[in-house]
């Protein structure tokens, strides 16, 4: 089978789109169901990426662990660290309102960015740090390696989506929806709303950290420019576009935004070469921002619309 059509750029674009779907799915649980407007996605994503890199490169692991041992241990540490950060931030924001959540999550993302810049000894500062790929021992060459990580990311996204679909059909999902739609009512019915939000936020953050770590492996290089507001924006616009209350919302939305722009526009449209460096990334953000505005004004529930449950309730109510 010839894989020539699969250029390095296309693989990377597919990888980015898949990762963004994963982030958007996790945001779907936090924002779409439980009503927590997380504006600090990139903070958890970046923490996972940097935590993995720092544990992988700066910790003198014993030789006996080998490449894969250190890799998996570092990955585990990255997930744990971002989960703990999720517990901390979740504790801060869970009993605050929209404004407090905005400032808490945005502040966390800023602090992560500043730490990545200032902790030069650990993170390499603005220049960033090179990180090893555990696949290098196989001598596969560059393309199979990136294909491998693309496959890992796809598996991860499928797993997250399966989990989200399960949550939708479970009592736990109903609890999340109750918390998101009327927290006071849920609490008065005896549901532990604070604890529910806290655990959900911690799990979501750990997942975002895991996605960030896999991004770090794929890039072979970790830089502060990777953890800008663009990551949060891409996940958010994808989710809002598709429909923040639906299981398929994140997938449809991200394919129509990041997928459309990063793959169709950047690869298949004949654009002048001079645009790629500076103009296109800026146009991408403008496009995403404009999409957010348009969707929220004209179709606030996203393309897929209401929750299935709501339609069902409506039908039962009228019939």
């Amino acid at each position: 089978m010839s894989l020539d059509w699969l250029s390095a750029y296309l693989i990377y674009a597919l990888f980015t789109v898949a990762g963004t779907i994963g982030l958007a799915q996790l945001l779907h649980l936090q924002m779409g169901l439980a009503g927590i407007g997380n504006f600090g996605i990139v903070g958890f994503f970046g923490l996972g990426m940097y935590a993995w890199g720092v544990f992988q490169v700066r910790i003198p692991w014993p030789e006996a662990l080998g490449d894969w041992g250190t890799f998996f241990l570092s990955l585990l540490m990255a997930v744990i660290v971002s989960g703990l950060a999720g517990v901390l931030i979740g504790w801060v924001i869970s009993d605050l309102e929209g404004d407090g959540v905005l400032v808490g999550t945005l502040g966390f993302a800023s602090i992560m960015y500043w730490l990545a810049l200032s902790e030069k000894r650990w993170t390499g500062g603005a220049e960033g740090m090179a990180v090893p790929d555990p696949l290098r021992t196989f001598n596969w060459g560059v393309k199979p390696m990136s294909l491998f990580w693309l496959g890992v990311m796809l598996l991860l996204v499928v797993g997250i989506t399966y989990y989200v679909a399960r949550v939708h059909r479970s009592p736990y999902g109903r609890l999340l929806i109750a918390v998101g739609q009327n927290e006071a009512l849920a609490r008065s019915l005896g549901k532990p709303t604070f604890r529910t939000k806290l655990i959900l936020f911690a799990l979501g953050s750990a997942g975002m950290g895991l996605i960030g770590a896999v991004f770090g492996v794929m890039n072979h290089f970790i830089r502060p420019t990777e953890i800008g507001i663009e990551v949060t924006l891409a996940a958010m616009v994808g989710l809002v576009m598709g429909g923040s209350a639906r299981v398929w919302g994140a997938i449809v939305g991200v394919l129509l935004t990041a997928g459309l722009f990063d793959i169709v526009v950047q690869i298949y449209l004949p654009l002048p070469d001079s645009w790629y460096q500076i103009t296109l990334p800026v146009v991408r953000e403008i496009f995403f921002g404009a999409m957010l505005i348009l969707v929220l004004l004209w179709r606030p529930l996203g393309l897929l619309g209401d929750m299935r449950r709501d339609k069902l309730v409506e039908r039962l109510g009228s019939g």
Partner: protein
Amino acid sequence: MSLDVDRSDESPAPPFGKRVRELLETRTGRVGVWVALLAALVLLVAFWSLARKALIFGLAEEAPLALAAVGFALLYRLTGIINVAYAETVTLGAYFGMWFNTTFGWNFYLSLVPAALGSGVLSVITYFAFFRPAHRRNVGVVEVIILSFGLSIVLRYGLQLIFGHEQRYFKVPFQNPIKILGLGVPPFRVTALAGVVAGALILYWFIQKTRLGIQIRALAGDEKLAQVSGINPLAVTLLIWFIAGLAGGAAGAFYGVGASVRPLLGWSKFLYILLAVLVGGARGLRGVIVAGLGMGVLISGLTLAIKGQGLYSEILVVLLFIIILKLRGNRMSEAAKV
């Protein structure tokens, strides 16, 4: 997946912030507060040279924060909207001012007028184009924040597309520094500080004391009641957006002349504006002004104390303000408006 519902009968523990407040109201708590204040005073005297620098530099450099925060607080408290795109109101003020200053050769103080007016008009336009339709379509609170976030992104990257990343500067004549408390400060910064404080106080007076200000607050308190008592809600809402834009634009011009004009200018200050408003806002506009100025002094003081690492001071200040917010809990929403 297990359904994790707490069925125990125990009453939930009071929130963390409430427990702290209750502690502060006891006798030991009050004594503790006085001891802390006394300790702060002792520290101030002991580290006078540092405190002096922090006060002067902090006030001179970050004074526009207070003005920008007052504008944001007006918008937030009176219309209930958290407008992330307010950051770009600030940025555009800097660009408008720089444009008149460099292209038409206007004096800086004169160019403050188009800066403020331009941002004011822009603020009103964003209300008409985005926030009014959103309000009419009953878009939820979190969704409005996301909408304004999208608007902020469009404006910010639009500026980047037009002007590029490079920093631009106001053309202002060089002036000899003047000495205050033994430290040299450019006179420009001093007038900026005076202008900012005057602007913030005028806004405060306008909102609290004038007839129009009272109308504005009445509208915020109860829209229907305001309407039957003969207040035109649209006119008053427009006025709020316009005034918020004026304050943001002027703050942006002051920021721009103090350092440089760049597309990320407003966004880089937005977190501080938000924190100053949320933390100071419970005590009204005065609280916002104090929180804004205090934040500037704290940042520069910490920057001086932790030599060479500017970012730690910002991290510490953001953490400190978020902790204050957490301790206060939801009391914010119960607090009287402005």
